[in-house]
């Protein structure tokens, strides 16, 4: 940390530093792009992974906090860039350095109206073109009359805007085309079986070959971040179930850890073991469903029914303990809601016994099939550099050879004591992404095996004050969700509800990278690639 601070201070004397859970660098907007270039290019720093951009409205100021990680040195830094102009907030874009930054900046623009100079495609991301106001600003008018529910078709535009600085340093607006005028554009989604929910691709095709994909999100944008600002801390928890509904446990785990860290609550070892067990069980369930739906997308419908058998078995275990099949709301601040069901251990052991058999069966039916091999191998290649630049984490990133498992790189809870391998493959194609998930099931089973016989006794929930107030400050935690690095940014002003709760979902980069991967492939490959990335739309839309 100190070393990073020294290096940056030497290069940029105007930078000031704050020490939270990560080092925070304050930098004026004018110098930000230079600093960003240094952060990325300087081999001592080498911050090549942009975890998230947190848009902020501090009432007097607007700005962004950039969370950066270096994949080579495994160190972290955050950078705060602000502007005083509330009417026309302008910051400099870093979309030329990190590929994913363009998408993150669109999100910030959508929520806060901050314009990024140098971003070539600054449109609304989640909300429609005609939406009034910027919802996450503190002075946003939520009057439904301003943005009524309409059944008229949404206005569709083929143009985007870009902002750039002219010679005198004045910001000017420019209109950019999204598609070429004579492109044959096929609209895929939002109601389409292959998009895994309500994602929309406008696809320019040449025959069956894809020229460009324009991704439209927001068809399930529920504004969870804004709602959370009106709720108390325990109330915010249940939204974690409704983001990525397969990673309900890991997501809960993350927010609970963040709040516990902020409030200084210690959780017992029993709770930690239970949480890790639940995380891994849901990882198996999630990957099982992935395999099933993926094979269904490729036309092998029967596989879905075989994988769902295992999933149902896990859901039974969960239901006995948590009382629900999908939205568990099990972890709470300080521990878990209920103790484990009496036959939890036996059920899990029964599950562990069938998993190897099932994996073998899946491999026999699908992975070894010559058609499957032809469809998957070499399709949708994503290099390691691109994966990092696009922040494609989780199993999809590991399929490209990027060892990005948060459980290994920044172990949380009791993961550092556990023995398991990080599954990494270097092919970078759809088959690699598929096989990574297949192998992760085995690794998760291994973790569960180590823990299931040694669940320590202890309290299931620590003493937590009835009305929970967090001290003033900011915290950022990441965990390994079932689909990648999931982060929660929490800023508190000392009240009972969060000042800002930013959710950094893994699926937003996964969907953003689709355009990059699919160029030049066939339409049928779009399904293969999209399926292998395994994004969950409610997760990216929030």
């Amino acid at each position: 940390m100190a070393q990073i601070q020294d290096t940056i201070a030497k290069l940029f004397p105007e930078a000031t530093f704050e020490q939270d859970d990560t080092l925070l660098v304050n930098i004026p907007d004018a110098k930000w792009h230079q600093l960003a270039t240094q952060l990325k290019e300087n081999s001592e720093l080498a911050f090549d992974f942009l975890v998230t951009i947190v848009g902020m409205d501090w009432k007097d100021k607007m700005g962004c906090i950039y969370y950066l990680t270096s994949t080579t040195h495994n160190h972290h830094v955050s950078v705060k860039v602000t502007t005083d102009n509330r009417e026309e907030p302008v910051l400099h874009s870093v979309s030329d350095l990190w590929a994913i930054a363009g998408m993150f900046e669109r999100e910030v623009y959508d929520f806060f109206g901050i314009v990024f100079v140098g971003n070539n495609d600054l449109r609304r991301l989640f909300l429609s073109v005609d939406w009034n106001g910027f919802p996450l600003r503190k002075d946003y008018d939520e009057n439904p009359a301003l943005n009524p529910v309409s059944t008229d078709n949404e206005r569709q535009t083929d143009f985007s805007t870009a902002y750039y600085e002219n010679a005198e340093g004045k910001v000017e607006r420019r209109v950019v085309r999204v598609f070429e005028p004579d492109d044959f554009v096929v609209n895929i989604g939002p109601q389409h079986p292959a998009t895994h929910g309500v994602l929309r691709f406008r696809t320019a095709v040449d025959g069956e070959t894809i020229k460009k994909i324009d991704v439209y999100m927001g068809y399930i944008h529920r504004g969870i971040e804004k709602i959370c600002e009106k709720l108390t801390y325990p109330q915010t928890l249940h939204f974690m179930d409704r983001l990525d509904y397969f990673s309900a446990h890991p997501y809960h785990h993350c927010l609970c850890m963040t709040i516990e860290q902020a409030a200084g609550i210690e959780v017992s070892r029993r709770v930690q073991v239970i949480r890790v067990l639940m995380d891994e069980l849901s990882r198996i369930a999630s990957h099982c469903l992935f395999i099933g739906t993926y094979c269904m997308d490729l036309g092998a419908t029967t596989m879905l029914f075989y994988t769902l058998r295992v999933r149902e078995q896990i859901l039974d275990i969960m239901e006995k303990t948590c009382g629900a099949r999908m939205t568990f709301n099990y972890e709470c601040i300080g521990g878990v809601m209920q103790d484990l069901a009496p036959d939890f251990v036996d059920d899990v052991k029964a599950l562990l016994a069938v998993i190897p058999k099932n994996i073998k069966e899946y491999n026999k039916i699908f992975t070894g099939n010559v058609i499957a091999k032809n469809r998957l191998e070499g399709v949708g290649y994503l290099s390691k550099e691109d994966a990092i630049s696009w922040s494609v984490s989780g199993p999809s990133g590991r399929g490209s050879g990027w060892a990005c498992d948060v459980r290994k790189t920044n172990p949380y809870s009791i993961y550092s004591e556990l023995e398991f391998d990080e599954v990494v493959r270097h092919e970078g194609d759809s088959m690699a992404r598929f096989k990574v998930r297949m192998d992760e099931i085995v690794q998760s089973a291994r973790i569960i095996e180590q823990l299931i016989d040694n669940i320590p006794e202890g309290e299931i929930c620590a003493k937590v004050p009835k009305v929970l107030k967090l001290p003033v400050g900011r915290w950022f935690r990441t965990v390994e969700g079932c689909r990648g690095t999931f982060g929660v940014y929490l800023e508190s002003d000392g009240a009972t509800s969060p000042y800002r709760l930013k959710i950094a979902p893994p699926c937003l980069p996964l969907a953003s990278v689709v355009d990059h991967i699919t160029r030049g492939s066939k339409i049928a490959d779009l399904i293969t690639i999209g399926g292998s990335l395994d994004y969950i739309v409610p997760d990216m839309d929030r």
Partner: protein
Amino acid sequence: MPYEAWKDNEYIESLVKELQDNGANVIVGSFDKLINWGRSNSLWPLTFATSCCGIEFVSLGAARFDMARFGWEVARSSPRQADFIMVAGTIVNRMAPVVRRLYDQLAEPKYVIACGACAVSGGPFKKSYHVVMGVDQIIPVDVYLPGCPPRPEAMIYAIMQLSRKIKVERFFGGVNRKEKQEEFLKNHPIDEVVD
């Protein structure tokens, strides 16, 4: 399932009464019975899901709950060929025109099940700025199914309720449902699609 085990018997009975008040011809009545038998036993869903409820709908099709037993497994991806739309998940402002359009694209007779708390009333997102508070604001709903998400068993119950409702419908002569639907659509108009 025995008659007593159902929950909404009063509603169905009032519907039957309303229909019988108009009087039914014997021959026409038996035609109606045949048609309704066909319709109520052959409900093809539209593959439509926005969030969590959709995953439970997948579970409903899987081996454990097997909706194929009732003949509901022919999920059509094209709205022209489906019979009912199970609004499984939250409908947000941006999705509203799409849902309405899907409904308009369904061929008559068409039915809607509002599945899950979000589709019924907005559910946990009641305070949101971007969520439609109940899908009945944009399309007429036949069966409401609460739950977050509803269990597959509950979904079976809901579709069976729909099937019961269809059984007492009338095809020939005055059809009450159609009038109500037209009335609803008149009150919730959409602009002509301009190409």
